[in-house]
């Protein structure tokens, strides 16, 4: 809705004069109850729900057990794979062929001569 104001200065002064007519509003009679309720709510939120604490504790425990089991598993698999690697390295790269000659002398050829 468009108003028609003849004198903006006068209108502005009228508006500012409203500040002198302002009455103090009555306070809400239930304010005390509201504040009490808000305080109780905040205290409840701060202390936390006992069921939530149990759930959080149980979840943490399960997580720790899982983490421990996983670490154990990792360690076991590492120790199991170690000898095979060492053997492979020994036989492929580092073992000189000459040492097999001693093994050959241990073979019993007695049956062949018979």
């Amino acid at each position, binding site marked *: 809705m468009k108003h*028609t*104001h003849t004198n*903006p200065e006068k209108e502005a002064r009228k508006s*500012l004069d409203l500040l002198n*007519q*302002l009455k103090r*509003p009555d306070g*809400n009679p239930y*304010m005390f109850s509201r*504040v009490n309720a808000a305080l109780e709510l905040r205290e409840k939120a701060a202390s936390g729900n006992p069921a939530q604490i149990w759930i959080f504790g149980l979840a943490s425990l399960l997580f720790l057990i899982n983490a421990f089991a996983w670490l154990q598993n990792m360690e076991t698999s590492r120790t199991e794979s170690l000898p095979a690697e060492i053997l492979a390295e020994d036989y492929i790269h580092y073992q000189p062929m000459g040492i097999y000659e001693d093994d050959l002398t241990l073979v019993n050829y007695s049956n062949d001569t018979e």
Partner: protein
Amino acid sequence: MLNTCLGFVSNLQDAEDICQEVFVDVFRSMDTFEEASSLSTWIYRIATNKCLSFIRYRKRQKRAAFFKSLIGLDQAESLQVPDDSFHPGLSLENQERGKILFEKIRELPEKQQTAFVLNRVEGLEITEVASIMNSNRNAVDALLNRASRNLRKKLEAYYTNEE
């Protein structure tokens, strides 16, 4: 307290909510009160900060609504923040004028707004306003002068455009 909050937000429900928050904060942080200033000054300070935060939050909401409506995230009308200003300290025939007045007070810079509301709406002495604002008497005087001048300009501009 309610009158001060109303001076800032000019809506009874919002003012009562802020009052409740103020009292809860006062109760919870009573141990930290250092008695460097009087209790009423401290409470006024908390109330002023809460009111200014509330106004900032409302402005942010309006800005977000505007941008969302621009990029078509939602219907513009559903995002508009309702402007249900109603000052119970004013008569019914002055409600419309009062709504414009308080809207223009909220457009003032925060310091000017605080000084103006505490002095002109709440009726506190300049020295009290100065101690609430952690300032001195001269600075508050200057703020009040600037606030009155700016407010008059804003109101005049509003009524000129309305013509």
